[in-house]
């Protein structure tokens, strides 16, 4: 089987325009600025209030706070991606153009993911500051950022799926929050589940993999977990978009 890259790229040529349009509309509306400011304010507060208290040059507290902030900030980012198109009827314009449903989902997914990435970018300042104040172990930082980005990817994919289920942004937000919250809590409820299920549940929990990666050891099992979750949620979103054809 020969893989033709040119053909593959041509098949997904509309991802680019959709991505740029969505990202621009984040910045045209207040969404992008509100998200970035709220994100930095919360993360910054936890970062500074602990840094001097603990007197350790580490970003650990920040890496522990960000997954919690993600829980509500990412569903807020993704809630309008598909639900608004459904509500305003523009989904009909979009899907009657020569654009595949996968292109729509991918373009919107990357736009949401990119916005999370942009919001995380200024936190590098905390890294630099901490590095000046004391010697910092780079392994966990690189692992932490890597893990957070993958986690954000999974959350954005989940949020996008939630947005594809409804034409109401508030419902999309709540569904998205519930889904990512369940995924986040899975490895924290092991105490309450039967023993034989515990390892499976733990493996499904996203925070378990994040903490693995955040130790600075990037294991292929964790990476595969993140990418398969992400891919699965994107497939679900494409499927949900095709419900109009039922």
């Amino acid at each position, binding site marked *: 089987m020969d893989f033709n890259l040119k053909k593959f790229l041509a098949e997904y040529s509309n991802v680019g*325009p959709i991505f740029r349009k969505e990202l621009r509309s984040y910045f045209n509306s207040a969404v992008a600025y509100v998200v970035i400011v709220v994100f930095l304010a919360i993360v910054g507060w936890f970062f500074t209030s602990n840094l001097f208290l603990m007197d350790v040059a580490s970003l650990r507290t920040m890496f522990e706070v960000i997954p919690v902030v993600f829980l509500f900030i990412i569903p807020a980012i993704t809630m309008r991606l598909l639900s608004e198109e459904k509500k305003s009827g523009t989904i*009909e314009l979009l899907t*009657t153009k*020569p654009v595949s449903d996968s292109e729509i989902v991918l373009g919107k997914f990357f736009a949401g993911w990119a916005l999370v990435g942009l919001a995380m970018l200024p936190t590098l300042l905390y890294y630099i500051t901490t590095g000046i104040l004391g010697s910092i172990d780079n392994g966990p930082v690189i692992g932490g950022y890597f893990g957070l980005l993958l986690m954000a990817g999974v959350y954005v994919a989940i949020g996008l799926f939630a947005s594809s289920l409804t034409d109401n942004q508030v419902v999309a937000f709540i569904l998205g929050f519930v889904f990512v919250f369940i995924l986040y809590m899975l490895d924290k409820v092991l105490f309450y589940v039967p023993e034989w299920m515990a390892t499976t549940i733990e493996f499904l929990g996203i925070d378990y993999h994040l903490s693995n990666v955040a130790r600075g050891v990037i294991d292929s099992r964790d990476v595969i977990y993140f990418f398969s979750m992400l891919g699965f949620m994107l497939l679900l979103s494409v499927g949900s978009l095709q419900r*109009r054809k039922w």
Partner: protein
Amino acid sequence: MSITVRNLTKFYGQEKAVDDISFDVKTGEILGFLGPNGAGKTTTMKIITCYMPPSGGTVSVDDYDIAEHSLEVRKKIGYLPELNPLYLDMNVMEYLEYSAQLHGVPKAEIRPRLRDMVDVCGLTSVRHKDIGELSKGYRQRVGLAQAMIHDPDVLILDEPTSGLDPNQIVEIRNLIRKLGRAKTVILSTHILSEVQATCDRVIIINDGKIAANGTPDQLQTEFHGSEIITMELKANVENGMTDIFPKIKALAHVENVQYQNPSPGVHHLIVTAAKGQDIREEIFRQAVAEKWVLLEMHREATSLEEIFHKLTTVN
């Protein structure tokens, strides 16, 4: 670019929205889709544009079947959906550029194409405004520009003039006429004068079925009712009711006469004659013979309104 629709059927749950419809649209033809709300116009259009699949039957656009070659079909179609949905937070140029990109207009051609469409659709003065700030008339032009941006062979316009004021309606209609030259166009409407003004052919659709199909002229001949002639004449008679009325009534083929006497010496009559009988000549001869002065005589053509009403109301 011709469109062939065969035995198209669509169910929404248990409800039949489109019931075994077949028709053709020839290249370059402007087809008017006429029918009351909920007749199945929009559903048919949504199926042709590949928004949703039919429950049964086939549609092909120039030999491309909508089910098998959906992307090919969508490339050839420009579509203005019902209610003209738009991204209100984008400005006109951004939006048209986005549409051009999604339609696969080559990069080098996008700029000149945008300039053309903005020019043709009269959007020059508002091209840097957000769509949300535009009036309904301008939004409709943006919707048309968007549908035309890739120079499609087929245009499908779902109620392109709904919600516009009379001036805007005339403008949009002219625009469609201008843009629709050399294109295959299907437009739906429930405004009858629109069909007469813009369309080569009319399909009247009611309750999911085709009730009539033909040119406006054909439909008028086919669904012709009795002849109605209104006339006004001047005559110095004592009493129109006894001196004029019976003489008209006595003419051949006359079925009914209504008489009015709006002012002294002026007599107004509405004459109904049998179907297909033109009795204007007889009336004229009678008037000459009686030395009446004909001020006005007018034969009413059966309007599309009447045909539409006849076909779409349940007895």
